[in-house]
């Protein structure tokens, strides 16, 4: 899943990107508000981690513009200002959550996952499909209760398809969610990952729609739990 980190401090931006990458996200990092605006216009980020004290275009102003454009993507604000007025101002400007510096990386990633879950309208933190279960926090996949070992990209691809059950995802869409902009995927990378997933989880789970993309069909979904 693709995230955008907007942080003007080089050390902190680098740290957050590394930390969220460890948690399995594809993370892009920009250092000012303008660059963030451009990035958000062009890429399908699932969530934005936004510092408020940004040069060129302040975090709050960027947030207001996003919401004014009807962009409902979850935004988690990072800030050094921790007064109630600051928090209220940030949330009222359209932020979904608020983390005060210095923060715990584990907490930040947990909040990011929670926001993603909520934005997908999902109550259960574990994604389930038939006897397949995917836990984004533990980064584990089980099939009929048995643990299945997946490579990081395979996990992310499965996660993406499970989040969009019944919806056909194009190869381009999947690539954008798998890779940061500084990582150029091989032309058949998605096919290779899908191939591996079918080998590990069964051939019927992911259906190929020729010329369109891939889909996990919703028809086979059993009632959750």
């Amino acid at each position, binding site marked *: 899943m693709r995230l955008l980190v907007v942080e*003007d*401090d*080089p*050390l*902190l931006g*680098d*740290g*957050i990107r*590394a*930390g969220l990458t*460890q948690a399995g996200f594809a993370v892009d990092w920009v*250092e*000012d508000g303008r660059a963030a605006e451009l990035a958000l216009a062009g890429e399908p980020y699932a969530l934005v981690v936004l510092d408020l*004290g940004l*040069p*060129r275009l302040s975090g709050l102003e960027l947030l207001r513009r996003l919401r004014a454009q009807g962009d409902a993507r979850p935004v988690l604000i*990072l800030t*050094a*200002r921790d007064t109630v007025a600051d928090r209220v101002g940030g949330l009222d400007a359209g932020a979904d959550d608020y983390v*005060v*510096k*210095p*923060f*715990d*990386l*584990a907490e*930040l990633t947990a909040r990011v996952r929670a926001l993603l879950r909520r934005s997908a309208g999902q109550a259960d933190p574990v994604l389930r499909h038939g006897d397949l279960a995917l836990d984004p926090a533990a980064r584990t996949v089980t099939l009929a209760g048995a643990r299945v070992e997946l490579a990081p990209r395979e996990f992310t691809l499965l996660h993406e398809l499970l989040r969009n059950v019944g919806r056909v995802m194009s190869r381009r869409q999947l690539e954008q969610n798998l890779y940061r902009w500084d990582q150029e995927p091989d032309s058949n990378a998605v096919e290779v990952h899908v191939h591996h997933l079918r080998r590990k989880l069964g051939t019927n789970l992911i259906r190929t729609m020729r010329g369109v993309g891939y889909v996990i069909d919703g028809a086979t979904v059993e009632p959750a739990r």
Partner: protein
Amino acid sequence: MTGASAPPGKTFSLRGRLIALFLLATTVTWAAAAFLSYVDARKEIGEMMDAQLAQSAEILLAQAGHELDDVPVAETPAGHRYGRKVAFQIWDSRGRLLLRSESAPAERLTDRVDGFADRRLDGRTWRVYSRSDRDRKVLVQVGERREVRDELAAGVATHLLYPVLFALPVLALLIFVAVGRALAPLDRVAREVERRAPDHLLPVEAGSAPREVQPLLAALNALFARVRSTIEHERRFTADAAHELRTPLAAVKAQAQVAQGARDAALRDHALAQVVAGTDRATRLVLQLLTLARLDPPQGLPAATDVDVAALALAVLADEAPRAAAKQIDVALHAPAPTFVRGDPTMLAVLLRNLVDNALRYTPDGGRIRVRVTADAGATTLEVADNGPGIPSAERGRVFERFYRVTGTGQSGSGLGLSIVRRVVELHGAVVELDDGPRGKGLTVRVRFPAAGQG
């Protein structure tokens, strides 16, 4: 005024002083009036009694003329309370005493034969009137003890003083109340100031205060305003400082946690290097904050001497030489002669170090830094020029603000370096300006000091 907290012995009460002064003035006025009355009464009484003496003598003479021709020496009794103090003698032309009052001495009252005389007899002063008949057969002398007059005059004056003795306490009480009422607005102001919390620095309401207190209130309110702005400034600075420290701390923590979770060595090493860099940055930020705090003396330069800026520049560049060498930056100093500036050597060193540090920080590897110290008509110019990225002219006004950083430099400074430079420049009465570097690329920082002895 309730100066409860004031040290004893050094303060006085305005109310007590007013009351004492009022009472003193009243008493002095009254005493002066009594004294004048006494003097006046004495004069009046003297004239009146002289007239009585003369009249008595006339009457005695008229009687003596036909009744006392051959009367042997006789005494007449004295009945009135002043009787002992009034006396007469009647003498014939041969100097024989014909008649005298009981109170009169046997000795002749005076040698004068006509008019008034003062005479001391047996330790007493007599006022005597002498009168003879036309053919000088009989001499009448009427005397009166002087103290009678004094007693009468003193009596008049004393009677005048009695009401004062009764009136003074009443007057004191009235003055006490009146002064209290007059000073009530002062008390109100004092109480309002006293009640204030230490951080309540809004102006005291001056509307109802008396004219005399207005200047005090104005001064007080001006002080409040100054203190308020100082506190506001300090509070903002502290908040900014805390804010600025949170980011490097967050970075250090995030990088440390990345290192903890890293499974490959390269990522862990990178994160750990970032932890070290973040710690260095936080340290530098704290040092810069301390420098800035120390540069905030309320007035002027504590220790101004003549400082050779050329020598100082050489020393700072020598210190920074290893850093320049590490980045292969070509550093040159152009300072042809000792150049003196009136100022504080420590602060000027801080100024130079910040300018050179900025240049070294932002100039890319293999770049050039030029430092020039020149004197022209007594005024000294210090220039630090580099061929780094420079500062866009739109941002040049803002870079002196605290914590302002130019973006896209790839460097994470404290955002305080140029604030420190500006503060030192201000303290030395100098000016600082930013310009393009040599050949339009990079940055030149130019500090102009006023001629020594002028600033």
